[in-house]
């Protein structure tokens, strides 16, 4: 496996506040990485960095061995997509929303959209208007519009928070399918340690904006992490 992302001495600061500080992190192409940590730990910021939506205050983010100090070009940016924690859909039908990214790229949409809707159990809602959807349906549509692009990198920010088990399962299956069938690199931010264990062989732990530790998921989440903070986080000693 080759290194897709390499973060070196990266910090993100808003004024005096340091929101993210990562000394060294590598993400391999085709990896499935979970990022865990309490709220406000900087996980979303990390995803935004990886999606080229934000630039680090210091340090470098290398993608495919390259950096672009003035911002990544469009074709590179379009290889990565991010499913937000609170997804916002456009005022249109489910179909239109899922097709949106493809239409941006000028690619034919109809067949792929139909297939994705099928995968996510949304076919019966194809013509439904976005504002009439339930929470779970909305989340699935948001995922759908990302999956349909078959991106090289799929970033997910708490994709199943507050959803019922049925929806959780559906969504996890779809993500895994993309990973398996298309070799996408997946980075999933999750609160749910069980989910991390289910889906990701490797996990990174973020506490207070700092990358504390990263390693094999079962090792870390069974309390065998090297850093005492990881153990405190996993054991429940740390309040969050």
């Amino acid at each position: 496996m080759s290194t897709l992302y390499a973060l070196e001495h990266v910090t993100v600061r808003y004024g005096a506040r340091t929101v993210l500080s990562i000394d060294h992190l590598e993400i391999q192409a085709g990896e499935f990485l979970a990022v865990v940590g309490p709220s406000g730990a900087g996980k979303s910021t990390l995803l935004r960095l990886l999606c080229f939506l934000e630039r680090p205050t210091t340090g470098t983010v290398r993608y495919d061995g390259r950096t672009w100090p003035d911002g990544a070009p469009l074709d590179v940016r379009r290889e990565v997509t991010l499913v937000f924690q609170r997804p916002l859909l456009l005022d249109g039908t489910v179909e239109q929303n899922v097709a949106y990214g493809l239409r941006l790229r000028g690619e034919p949409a109809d067949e792929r959209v139909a297939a994705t809707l099928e995968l996510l159990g949304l076919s019966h809602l194809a013509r439904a208007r976005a504002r009439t959807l339930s929470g779970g349906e909305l989340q699935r549509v948001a995922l759908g519009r990302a999956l349909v692009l078959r991106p090289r990198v799929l970033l997910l920010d708490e994709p199943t928070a507050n959803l019922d088990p049925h929806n959780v399962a559906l969504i996890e299956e779809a993500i895994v399918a993309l990973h398996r069938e298309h070799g996408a690199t997946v980075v999933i931010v999750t609160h749910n340690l069980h989910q991390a264990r289910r889906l990701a062989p490797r996990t990174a732990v973020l506490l207070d904006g700092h990358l504390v530790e990263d390693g094999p998921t079962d090792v870390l989440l069974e309390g065998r992490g090297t850093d005492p903070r990881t153990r405190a986080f996993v054991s429940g000693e740390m309040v969050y």
Partner: protein
Amino acid sequence: MDDILGGLVGALRLLLSGDPDIWSIVLLTLRVSGIALLISAVIGVPIGAWLAFRSFPGHRFVTTLIYTGMGMPPVVAGLAVYLLLSRSGPLGMLGWLFTPRAMVTAQVLISLPLVIGLTTSAVEGVVPELRLQLKALGATERQIVQAILWEARAGMLVALVAGFGSIISEVGAVMLVGGNIERSTRVLTTAVVLETRKGAFDQALALGVILVALTFFLNALALRLRGYLAHARG
């Protein structure tokens, strides 16, 4: 009561009689306000959207100006246009005074702040986080702007409806710059004033009923358009 009933019956009779004067007044009303709205829309919507997207020094000043314009008495706009277009004024050589062009000018001045202000409001109403999410889906700046404008389409339509409402029912400015000249600058509102002044209340009411009916019909059309836009492909 007689007057009211008389007015309703009179309105129908006026319209159905095919009286050329009435029809010329109605058509002129539509023409002047229609063209004014078109011009306002073409100028105002882009400016309004631009104000929502861009910030620059003096942005707040411009916004205050627009809000003031929205509340300005239309007859003041009329006075300003008269002073501009009068033969003793700076643009007197155009010869627009007492022609429909002057009326269109005044109505553009009146409706423009509304169209701009409400368009800005509509675009600002689109959740700002949407921009980032669209970018994450691979949208270019241009495509983001397009998407946001499309999201704001219902609000923009309201801006146009409000702009239209402000001019179709306006009387002071068009009286001033148009002169209420029979057959050439007489519109429904100024005709109502004329008839009222003469004490011909039933006639005035009939004209008023026509005006209200016209506005109602056009607003119904606008609502239809809104429904169509809501379901249209972006």
